[in-house]
């Protein structure tokens, strides 16, 4: 039965693709500005994809654009799914592993699925726009994108295909004994009426504290302290399966994959959601290994939902010292731009504006690897009527569902006989509403968030050897001075990186003549220098700051043809000859 249904599901999108392909010919279309008009991989950006569908899109993109997109697996999930990551760059303009890179992932929390569509949209947009958009061509000549649409594929499929609410599972699928009774996952939600949705239970009770809202009777509102209610709320659909007096206390998971990262990690009794030790979750471990194998990653974005936030660390108050003024300046410049590009989103700091939390992904990316990283919390109630939410945002959700979704987001209350609670009613918003974008707003918000990540990526370092000049010292000796410029906002090493020497120094090399001495020029006008006594051909500089220059100098013998090359893990490679 199930298989047949799945097959039908698969065939349906294929059919509609075929229709899309043949319905309009290119000559029948006017390109809407800023969108690929005639994509090689046709997509509908108003719905959500399961793991199999995501896999298919990644492979199609790689097949359609072999010079731009490569797909590989970072490792396997707990249940054995491949963790896909796309490498996107103009492969004809240099080794993608040597270009400054932006890493993007989504869906670390399994119920926060639109991060995958946003990441996928970015990959699709870069590939499909490359042919006719100069900015994208330049960007992919300079930069590499590593895009992992879902980093929690097991539980993504559970969210999509199993009965869930908007908040479940959030975890991955490794079974955990949450209530410490020795039994595992023995008391999760129960889809009592078998409709595929986990919604709320309510019961008529003259002593209850809720009544139906007059404006929309589907909505339960609490009564004032001096009023009588009509209903009591009994939580999400479920029963006390194990007879311990608690309902739904040990379901799928629970651990939080975003409490598993190795920067100031803390165990579960301090940080709820932590698993055994940092990277004890196989999905995160694969990502960590991937990131360490790609030291060119200078920028990171991890898509979550929801609330319309552009978040940076520190995650925990205890980590406040990790972020110093210089790095905060970079974050502020990017974050403020983000607020401009994505109306309704606010640039915020996790520990003070959200909650103080240990072991988050963005903390390891920045604290443990020195990568400038944001987490965007996708979707905000602002987008319902394009205005800031009032104090009654729940009422707005109901009116938005009535007026724009025509009640599609809600499971209407219906009677049910519960063997523990007696006569109850079951109803409430579906899992696809509240935290996820409604279809018609998905593409628009994906595009805005992508624009922010492209801006973020654009400002990874761009190095050039800007000047080489020569001075004759007499006696066959010459002084060669080279100026290395970084034309973007980010330095080659964040100050967190410099503090711990996370990444190796940038190397500026002179090849050709015999090098007698080498030095960093601290002040060219006043001739203040620091000599590097050992290996003088290869001057190591700790950092090349953003929108700034570094000057180095060599004393050489027998000048002739020579070249100066700068090699920086996060800044890429540039060279110039005299």
């Amino acid at each position, binding site marked *: 039965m199930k298989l047949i249904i799945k097959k039908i599901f698969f065939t349906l999108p294929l059919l509609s693709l075929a229709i899309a392909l043949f319905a309009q010919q290119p000559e029948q279309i006017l390109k809407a500005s800023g969108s690929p008009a005639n994509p090689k991989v046709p997509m509908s950006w108003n719905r959500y994809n399961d793991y199999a569908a995501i896999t298919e899109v990644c492979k199609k993109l790689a097949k359609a654009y072999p010079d731009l997109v490569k797909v590989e697996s970072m490792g396997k999930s707990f249940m054995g799914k491949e963790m896909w990551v796309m490498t996107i760059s103009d492969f004809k303009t240099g080794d993608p592993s040597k270009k400054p890179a932006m890493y993007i992932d989504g869906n670390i929390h399994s119920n926060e699925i639109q991060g995958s569509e946003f990441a996928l949209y970015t990959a699709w947009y870069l590939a499909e726009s490359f042919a006719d958009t100069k900015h994208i061509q330049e960007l992919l000549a300079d930069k590499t994108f590593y895009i992992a649409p879902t980093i929690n594929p097991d539980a993504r499929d559970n969210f999509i295909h199993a009965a869930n609410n908007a908040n479940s599972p959030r975890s991955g699928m490794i079974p955990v004994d949450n209530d410490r*009774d020795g039994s595992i996952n023995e008391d999760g939600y129960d889809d009592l009426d078998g409709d595929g949705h986990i919604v709320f239970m309510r019961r008529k009770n003259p002593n209850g504290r809720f009544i139906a809202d007059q404006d929309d009777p589907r909505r339960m509102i609490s009564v004032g302290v001096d009023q009588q209610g009509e209903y009591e709320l009994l939580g999400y659909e479920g029963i006390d399966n194990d007879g311990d007096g608690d309902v739904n206390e040990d379901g799928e998971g629970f651990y939080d994959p975003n409490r598993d990262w*190795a920067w100031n990690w803390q165990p*579960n*009794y301090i940080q709820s959601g932590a698993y055994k030790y940092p990277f004890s979750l196989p999905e995160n471990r694969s990502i960590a290994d991937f990131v*360490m194998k790609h030291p060119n990653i200078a920028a990171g974005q991890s898509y979550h939902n929801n609330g319309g936030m552009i978040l940076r660390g520190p995650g925990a108050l205890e980590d406040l010292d990790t972020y110093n003024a210089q790095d905060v300046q970079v974050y502020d410049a990017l974050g403020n731009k983000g607020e401009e590009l994505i109306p309704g989103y606010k640039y915020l700091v996790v520990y003070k504006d959200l909650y103080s939390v240990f072991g988050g992904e963005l903390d390891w990316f920045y604290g443990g690897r020195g990568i400038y990283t944001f987490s965007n919390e996708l979707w905000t109630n602002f987008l319902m009527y394009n205005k800031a939410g009032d104090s009654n945002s729940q009422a707005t959700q109901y009116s938005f569902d009535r007026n724009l979704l025509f009640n599609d987001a809600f499971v209407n209350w219906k009677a049910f006989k519960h063997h523990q609670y007696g006569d109850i009613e079951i109803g409430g918003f579906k899992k696809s509403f509240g935290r996820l974008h409604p279809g018609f707003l998905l593409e628009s918000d994906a595009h805005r968030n992508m624009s922010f990540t492209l801006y973020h990526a654009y400002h990874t370092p761009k190095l050039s050897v800007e000047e080489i000049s020569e001075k004759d010292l007499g006696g066959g000796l010459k002084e060669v001075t080279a100026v290395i410029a970084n034309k973007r906002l980010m330095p080659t090493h964040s100050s967190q990186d410099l503090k711990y020497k996370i990444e190796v120094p940038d190397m500026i090399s002179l090849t050709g003549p015999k090098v007698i001495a080498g030095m960093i020029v601290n002040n060219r006008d006043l001739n203040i220098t620091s000599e590097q006594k050992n290996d003088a051909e290869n001057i190591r500089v700790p950092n090349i700051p953003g929108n700034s220059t570094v000057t180095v100098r060599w004393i050489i013998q027998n000048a002739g043809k020579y070249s100066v090359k700068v090699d920086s893990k996060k800044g890429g490679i540039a060279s110039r000859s005299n």
Partner: protein
Amino acid sequence: MNNISKTIVLLMGIFLFYGETNAQDYSNYAQVSQRINALSKSYPGLVRVKSLTKTFGGKDIWMLTIGSGQTDQKPAIAIVGGVEGSHLLGTELALGFAEKLLNASSQDSIKALLAKNTFYVFPNMSPDATEQYFSQVRYARSSNARPTDDDRDGKINEDPFEDLNKDGKINWIRVEDATGKYRSNPEDPRSMILADPSKGEIGKYLLFSEGLDNDKDGNFNEDGEGGVHFNKNMSYAYPNFVPGSGEHMVSENENRALLDNLFEMFNIHSVITFGPYNNLSVPVTFNAPAVAKRVISGYYEADSKTNAQVSELYNKVTGLKDAPKSSATGGDFANWAYFHYGRNSFSTPGWWVPKAKADTARKEKDLKIEDQVSNYLRWAKSEKIEGSFAEWKKIDHPDFPGQNVELGGIDPFVLINPPYKLVEGLVKKHHDFILELSKNAPSIDLINIKKEKLGDGLTRVTATLINNGALATQTKVGERSYWVKKISVKLIPSANQSIISGRKNQMIDAIEGQGNKTLTWLIKGSGKLSIDAGSPTSGSKSIELAL
């Protein structure tokens, strides 16, 4: 294939064992493997051997499970050696415990003990590092075989030690130089100590480990072979980006494999670590503010009391005295076992250089300057231990042309590893201590069962859950961790009974040593009824009663 190659490795070990070294020394990797294999052959019913993983250097991390019957259902102690690669004694104490216990397993008292307790022995967590003691150039090593850039300059292993005088060990170089901060200890000029300028002392020597400054960065031997230290790679108080700590917490095979296993071993109530940290000679002190923070950094009061109680037992059983002060180093295993694993954690180096007494016959005076080398040299002389110090000898050193350079000083290993002849006695002391500790294991019983008829088929059932052990059923910190199971109490009524009051299934928090808790239910109906109580750390008990 695999089995065959394993046998070959073991055979080679036996060859080495009989061929090369003499049995009066510490065991290398092959010998340790051979000793473990011998145990599993001799006591197949009492010990199971498993390799948890292989290190970067390709060496097995062994785990021995010692006990009888359902070993995972009994209160257990984990014994971990080799947390610090240069601490050869740790492996001997852990493996020696297993050997001594199993060799006595035909005795009734040991049989009874093994029927009630389980012991998990991890003899050596740093086999890559330990092997350095047995190699052509000996030096105290803690790091595994993973190539790392210890000084984070982009070059890997570019400045190792060099055995300049080809004597097979790495000692010290002293250079007469006005910028030096070291001086000869006036009480024993062979030992170099730091000069204290505030006392008017003047440094005359530079002091380095034996080798060259290969990369000419002014530091000697700062980026040699390896690696990550097992005892710097754990998640509690992890030191970020220091040599030996790795790229992130719990990054190494051996650390991960040990933790993957330990987290699934719910019956472990105590972990004994043989390593540098010592909370057995002197217990931790309770510090209220340290547990008031979100990230606690001290023991809970109840747990510090347990530590004091067990420390007293240790000192009594072993008779070891005058232990030097020790402090946690960050990223270490013993503190992880308490703070992140939530179990009782007891740790000792097992041996330290005794305080040397002045030999009055030679008109020696008591040593006043705190210097472990001069103390060692005096003690070694009194014990007639020879060959653990190299006399200073002039050498030519390319990094100091024209300067007075001498090579010599204390040998590696000798300050933390006793002469091998002392090992047997130390194994016995620690074996006896572990057995005594196991007798204190938490142990659950159900007593004082009462049935009160309240009329009309209604009965009040009361039972007292008692912990007969001296150790609590779980630590105070473990109470907070979901990796430590609570005591589960289940009341199982028969078909015609119903529970009017009281929980059918309930979870009980820690019961302290010799503590108890009374539970009560109201039951309607007659017939048989049973109560099951237990947790993996404290055993289980089931009673049946008729209403």
